């Protein structure tokens, strides 16, 4: 270790440590690698608040059938917008290989209930009798 002469007059340190910068960069990289898949998935819907909501972990599964109805009345199956008329056939197609026919409905709390009922009717034609209405849980 050589002795570096520190001149009292100049207080500027021009030997910047790169190592901490690289550490911070790597940590940020890892944060974004972890968070990004969770962000892009879902159609944006404001779910209604319910006090008696139960956990429905099946809704997070890869093959869960999720129908969303947004505030402006559009119906989405997964990420794709569909016409309400086609919804029944598409849901039936998705449910062909599954044993328990459960569909999850994410409808905006201000969505027109008539549109929601139309979506439910279509889901019904696919032979589904169990419907999970996804909600936020109200803090008690």
């Amino acid at each position, binding site marked *: 270790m050589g002795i570096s002469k520190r001149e009292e007059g100049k207080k500027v340190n021009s030997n910047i440590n790169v190592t901490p910068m690289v550490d911070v960069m790597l940590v940020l990289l890892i944060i974004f690698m972890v968070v990004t898949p969770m962000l892009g998935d879902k159609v944006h819907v404001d779910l209604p608040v319910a006090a008696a909501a139960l956990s429905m972990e099946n809704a997070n599964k890869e093959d869960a059938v999720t129908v969303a109805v947004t505030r402006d009345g559009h119906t989405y199956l997964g990420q794709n917008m569909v016409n309400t008329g086609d919804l029944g056939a598409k849901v039936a197609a998705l449910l062909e290989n599954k044993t328990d026919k459960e569909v999850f409905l994410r409808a905006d709390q201000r969505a027109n*209930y008539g549109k929601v009922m139309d979506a439910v009717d279509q889901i019904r034609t696919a032979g589904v009798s169990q*419907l999970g209405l996804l909600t936020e849980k109200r803090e008690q």
Partner: protein
Amino acid sequence: MGMGGGNQGGTMSEINVTPMIDVLLVLLIIFMVIVPVVPKGLSTLIPQPPKDQNTPPPEQTIVVQVLANGVGEPSYKINEDSFAKSAIEPKLAEIFATRQEKVMFVKGDASLDYQKVAEVIDFGHQADVDNIGLITPQVEAGH
């Protein structure tokens, strides 16, 4: 401070462990903070068309109706009796306390906001009714 591990040519081979531990702790905190979100919801049933067209509807079905009142707050009825919103849950709890089969149906006007109907379904679950059926135009028409 002694000089450790001096190699030929002056290259330093001692790695600082401290920054590694810092990074490790930061990662630990990040993963503790990113808690996976479990979706929560209300389970409901959709009545399927009856196979046998001649079976009469079972007696004593409870139908909770949410009626839109134009711009104002909706009004609520349980089987033809009107109730205030805050009275629904106690009344449902009372009705179902004595019942074996806890089944109820919810019907709402098409012009309502979904939130209003979701609240009624919520009241049903709070009153311990597990089987809540949604009545939609097709269900009413019987197909």
